[in-house]
């Protein structure tokens, strides 16, 4: 009787371990796919910004391919376009529409560039102005080439991205046809700062 009991306990433990292993693998994958960045050797972090050097590429690892499918399906590979993402400011504060933010930087060494703001579902944000992006054709730059882009709900009458009522925000920079220098060393790209500003200070 004791032997039968031992076998039963052993089989139960085996079944539990096997189930835990199978379910654990799925849960870990789902956990890692919940974010578009983090714990991935294909990614490069530069300040608040992250880029995936193998987005869209056949050489991408399985985590990159799955993340791109969820958070940016039909992305171009890096020779055509490099994407940078930021969901937090320079101090690690998550970007939300509860606050106003400013991006300060200069242009990029590429054919055409753009900043686009997305909500927590990685979709464009509803606003009356339909002000979804600031790009190299419509940016209002200072004489020295620098620019300041404000993220806010209201229109501050400058380079502006509308944050609407989004819970979480993600800024994406796209560099179309990046120069050979950028392709050689993506860590050398001078990326803009992101800072929280007081509400209403946007028009200053």
């Amino acid at each position, binding site marked *: 009787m004791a032997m039968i009991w031992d076998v039963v306990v*052993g089989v139960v*433990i*085996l079944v539990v*371990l*096997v189930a*835990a*292993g*199978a*379910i*654990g*693998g*799925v849960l*870990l*994958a*789902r956990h890692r*796919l919940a974010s578009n960045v983090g714990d991935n050797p294909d990614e490069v972090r530069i300040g608040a910004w992250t880029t995936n050097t193998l987005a*869209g*590429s*056949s050489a*991408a690892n*399985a*985590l990159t*391919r*799955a993340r*791109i*499918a*969820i*958070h*940016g*399906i*039909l*992305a*171009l*590979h890096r*020779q*055509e376009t490099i994407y940078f993402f930021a969901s937090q400011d320079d101090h690690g504060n998550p970007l939300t529409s509860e606050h106003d933010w400013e991006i300060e930087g200069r242009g990029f060494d590429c*054919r*055409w560039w*753009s900043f*686009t703001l*997305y909500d927590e*579902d*990685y*979709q*464009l*944000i*509803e*606003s009356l102005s*339909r002000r*979804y*992006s600031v*790009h190299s*054709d419509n940016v209002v730059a200072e004489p020295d080439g620098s620019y300041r882009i404000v993220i806010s709900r209201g229109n501050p009458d400058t380079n502006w991205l509308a944050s609407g009522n989004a819970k979480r925000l993600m800024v*994406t920079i*796209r560099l*179309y*046809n990046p120069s050979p220098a950028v392709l050689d060393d993506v860590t050398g790209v001078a990326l803009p700062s992101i800072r929280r500003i007081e509400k209403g200070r946007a028009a200053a």
Partner: protein
Amino acid sequence: MMLLAGLVTALALFMLSYRLTLYRVPIKLMEGAEQRLLSIRSTGPNTFHHGRAPTHKARQIVMPSPDLVYSSCVYDLAAGDLVISGLLPPEGYYWSLSLYAHNTDNYFVLNDRELPARSFSVTLSLRGRKAASIVSPTRTGIALIRMIQRRPDDLPVIQAAQQSIRCEVVKT
């Protein structure tokens, strides 16, 4: 002994289920994207649909670029090779044709800088077929043509380029 066997099996299953989940996610999402793109047109695969620059109302695909005008085609090479051709907008407009396999890989891109004649024609085929200029890794996938719309009054020029796009099945 049984405990050790159980731990080893559990570890193996953990790694297998993790890898399998990562492998399946892009394929399932690509199938969803293909179905959504097919649902906005009634002609089936191998036909281009010409869109406008996305707004917040466009939610078929995540992270759309609001500055691009897209022409998209869900392709299926079951019936034969596919010849995609057309004209480009005038110089100064970014244009690209990108091809995506069924696992989402962007395996081919052609842009306007490579096409000084301002026209294009590519043949898409499966491995092993003759006369292929581009080999698709999978039978189905998505072809996407992107054009940057810099100003609202660029639209007629972009639409003319869109209307010139042809997609023809060549029986093999």
